[in-house]
């Protein structure tokens, strides 16, 4: 991808490009958002699931007709695909080891997700893609030798590349890899943790969470220039960024008010709003294609998926 930062791992990398990230980090500041409090009422929400079992990372299909999510069953996180109202649910695979963090390819034909490939001990997470009928499992990002963790995939809007995090080089960093697998390009280079990348709808930026400035904050990486912009500044942790379909806002999880809530930040205005303001734990935001926020909450006791009215 032209303009992408980083280097093919096998070629030693572009030091200049990585330095640009560092410089950009120093000179950023154009879009620092102070934590704010919304005056808007919290979102009314429709409960899509009702089993109460722990769930994570819901993701809507591009047509908004299906919802993928991971559910904790027994001792494993297992992927499910549900109908739009949550009523009909089916397992994606018949695997017994954990699989989670599924996202859709733009054509809606495949899911890209993390799985525990082998589990002699300490796990070995890799990123795979799979057809919706559970067939045609293909490697996207995998390390063969040393134990490492490839996870949190996000597919580019053109469907050609996948951003993900990996510990393959000794620290958790962000990388790009073709959807079909192959050489990976490193996007970040910092001793802090870099996690949960989310590709913008226009394909130009990646939002992610990093603790390079203290605790987890949301940052933006401009793929053309390599500049990094710190998007949030809050006393709590900010994580799991998710772009609105129009690219004008980012939803994210934050505990800045002492409880995990779903916030949004306007990319133009910088205005931060607490969208949930609920006593329960609200986490893992995503957007339905029509712009309705979706997330996981235990507001009714168990953990279920909620869709904003």
């Amino acid at each position, binding site marked *: 991808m032209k303009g992408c930062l980083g280097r093919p791992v096998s070629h030693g990398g572009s030091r200049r490009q990585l330095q640009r990230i560092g410089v950009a980090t120093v000179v950023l500041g154009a879009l620092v958002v102070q934590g704010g409090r919304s005056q808007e009422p919290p979102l009314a929400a429709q409960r899509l699931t009702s089993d*109460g*079992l*722990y769930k*994570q990372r819901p993701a809507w299909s591009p047509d908004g007709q299906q919802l993928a999510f991971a559910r*904790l069953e*027994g*001792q*494993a*996180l297992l992927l499910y695909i549900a109908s739009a109202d949550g009523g009909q649910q089916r397992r994606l695979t018949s695997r017994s*080891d*954990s699989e*989670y963090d599924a996202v859709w390819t733009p054509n809606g034909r495949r899911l890209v997700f993390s799985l*525990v490939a082998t*589990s002699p*001990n*300490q*796990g070995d*997470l890799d990123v795979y893609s799979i057809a919706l009928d559970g067939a045609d499992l293909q490697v996207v990002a995998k390390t063969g030798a040393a*134990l*490492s*963790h490839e*996870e949190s995939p996000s597919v580019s809007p053109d469907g050609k590349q996948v951003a993900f995090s990996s*510990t393959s080089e*000794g*620290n*958790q960093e962000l990388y790009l890899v073709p959807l079909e697998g192959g050489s990976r390009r490193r996007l970040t280079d910092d*001793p*802090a*943790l870099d*996690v949960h990348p989310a590709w913008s709808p226009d394909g130009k930026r990646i939002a992610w969470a990093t*603790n*390079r400035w*203290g*605790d*987890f904050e949301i940052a933006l990486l401009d793929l053309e220039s390599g500049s990094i912009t710190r998007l949030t500044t809050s*006393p*709590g*942790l900010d*994580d799991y960024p998710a772009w609105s379909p129009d690219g004008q806002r980012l939803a994210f999880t934050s*505990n800045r008010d*002492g*409880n*995990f809530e779903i916030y949004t930040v306007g990319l133009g205005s910088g205005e931060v709003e607490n969208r949930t303001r609920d006593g329960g*734990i609200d*986490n893992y935001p995503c957007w339905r294609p029509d712009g309705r926020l979706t997330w996981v909450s*235990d507001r009714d*006791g*168990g*953990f279920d998926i909620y869709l904003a009215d």
Partner: protein
Amino acid sequence: MLFAGRQSRSTPSGVSRRALLQVGSLGAVGLTLADALRLQAQAEEGAAPRARSVILLWLWGGPSQIDLFDLKPRAPVEYRGPYAPIATRAPGIEVSELLPRMAQRMDRCTLVRSLHTTSNDHGIAGTIGLTGGSKGAQSLGGQTLPGDVQPCHGAIADRLLSTGAWPPAFVSLGGALHQGKRAITGEGGGVLGAAHDPFRLDYDIRAGLKAPQLELADGLTPDGLGARQRLLDAFDHGADALGAHLAMHDRTRQYEQAFALLTSPDARAAFDVDAEDDRLRTRYGRFRFGQCCLMARRLIEAGTRFVQVNWSSHVEPFEDTGDGGWDMHDRNFPQLQDRHAWMLDQSLSALLDDLGERGLLEETIVLALGEFGRTPKINNKAGRDHWEHCYAAVMAGGGARGGHVVGASDKLGQYPTRQAMTPGDLFTTVLAQLGITTPKLTELNLTPSGEAVEGLFG
């Protein structure tokens, strides 16, 4: 605080020689004669219990002290991790931002930040944590350490404090502790005998109450006993058949005890978590550990003296074929912030509140810790490995001092710098609070597994 230094093992008469020596030098630390006399009286009282019961929350796998109760925000990024400390209701004490509920209850808690143990093997450290020593412990590689397995703390309480069949003095909630596929040693009566093994119960978020001792009976398979109502119905309608079954088969004490307990009205009432207010059940958390904590409160209320709640059976996380333990060699941070930390925060704070509202906290010691801590330096898998040199515990109730920190670690959280203590020291102090001191242990041919520690209790 009365004691100026660490209290050593007591003499058979209950008087600590070191404590008496301390009396002689009290002037040097500014204590009055009245203090000295009170100290001596305390020492002479020896076994006078100041707490009635214990709830031990066993955080199997080893939680990260530096991400929860002993943060190092000024350490390099490779150590401090992504979480910020937050102020608590106890002035000057900070805990992780992942523990906002506990922060509001820290005025009731004592934090221990200077625990250390001698093994970084789950099996061995687990045995040390639960029995105070490594005798008979089994390593990951299958090696058995020399010596007879000592009784766990709950088994000692069972031996000395049991008053009859109901309520059982020692109950373990959650699954039996394992390292790999092997159950660890040190969860039972040890040299005191299997009679002092815990009565075991478990809770499955879908199936409800589970009684592991009964799962071998015909017709009482895990599936058959899965649902609580089906369990109770089985006892209602199948007791005769089960009794015949028992007559024909090996009657182990545990089996009979389990049957007798689960069919008694008192036991059924105590075990019926569904009888609790729905909002209270939600406050504890609608997950295994939360509901086991609620069950622990019900058992303490019924008269049980020592309840051990095992966070998980296996140390490994769900992502590694475990059942959600604290062994976070990798993915330490998403696991902590997305599951473990708030689960602990929710369940422990609800337990403290519930015990307090019922007037039980003053007489019940609640203690949460694992078998060791985790490496202060983040490893190359965004995780933290085993760290036996320094870790933390949180304690409340039963006379524990509130808003207090005992011990300290260095600037990176690697080693204790003040008042280092072993799990044996900690539990010797806890048992002493129950009135179980050296003389009583001596009657059982046991010795204290450590030295009583000052400052934990008021």
